């Protein structure tokens, strides 16, 4: 299975981006192969509206089973849930650290959006 983590940059030492819709990008980590790639979210950084929906679309297109991020708003939550992606919010630290936490079942799955849209 692959998982997505919102990230401020393209390395595994990068910090988790606390924003989902307007994150710099997503680290897509393959749990079996233990390898990752970075997917840019640049176009949504300056989106006039609907950044959450579009970022969720990007994550859905990566066929991941889970998303780890800082906060997730209602529209993104709706799209991700419809695609059957498990959402983990409240993550912080480096990408490496949160992936370890995920593997050790230390992250709590979110059952609803934890922020309203435009929370920053």
């Amino acid at each position, binding site marked *: 299975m692959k998982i997505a983590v919102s990230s401020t940059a393209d390395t595994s030492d990068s910090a988790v981006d606390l924003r989902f819709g307007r994150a710099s990008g997503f680290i897509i980590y393959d749990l079996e192969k233990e390898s990752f790639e970075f997917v840019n979210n640049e176009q949504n950084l300056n989106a006039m*509206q*609907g950044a959450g*929906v579009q970022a*969720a*679309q990007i994550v859905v297109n990566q066929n991941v089973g889970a998303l780890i991020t800082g906060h997730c708003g209602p529209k993104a939550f709706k*799209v991700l849930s*419809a*695609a059957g992606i498990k959402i983990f919010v409240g993550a912080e630290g480096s990408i490496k650290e949160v992936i370890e936490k995920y593997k050790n079942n230390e992250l709590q799955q979110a059952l609803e959006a934890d922020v309203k849209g435009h929370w920053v």
Partner: protein
Amino acid sequence: MKIAIASGKGGTGKSTLAVNLAYLLSKMNKNVCLLDCDVEEPNCHIFLKPEIKSTQKIFLPVPEADNEKCTGCGKCTEICQFNSLALIKNSIMVFPELCHNCGGCWRICSEKALVKAQKEIGEVQEAKSGNLHFIHGKTKIAEPMSPPLINAVKEKGNSADVEIIDCPPGTSCPMIAAIEGADYVILVTEPTPFGLYDLKLAVDVVKKLKFNAGIVINKSSYNDHLIEDFAAKKNMEILAKIPDDKKIAEYYSTGGIIIEKIPEYKEIFENLNERISNNKR
């Protein structure tokens, strides 16, 4: 003739001016139509107390998904410039609150998996008292887009000698939608640094769009030079000054028409009307 009353800064006296000017012209036996286009918080009716004769709901076209037919091609999500659609496998999720009603998605969908549906955005109400025709729009709560409703209000007002358009504050899309097509734009301001700051933005808009426009100073005081210096620099006429008079504020707070109650202010509005008529020519 269409006269739009705009401001930039909110609370400068647009509605006060609109209501009193409309009232004055109707008493001069003109056929007047007052259009309250501040559809997010209309207030002219508080002063005119019109008896509403008709209410019409206003709708906008938004897409609706028929996911039995979706093949997952994704063309609709590509054409949408407002991120209002998401594709999950063979199923489309619609966020109508983000839609700008372009119709691109249901036109590009060859499977007819997206069809045109209607979303209510508010209502337009009409009233008539004597030769004063009154129309206003009220945005449905939580509807973020007002220009289509503003246009629906304006479409109703095409038969009067004089149309007075009370515009929303600001200088963004709703204000532009409201002043569009006006023969003259009155910019109401107050002689404060805030008033001046927003007036500058509003003047930029009307100059750029090549409107005939002039300035009214409301709550006129010892600080008028703030506005007058700027107006001189921009070659804009000060059409009228309404004094910073407690009597006006008191009567306004009870929801009345000022020139009816305080006749000495009638002349200010008569002169204003004359100046606009001269400028228009």
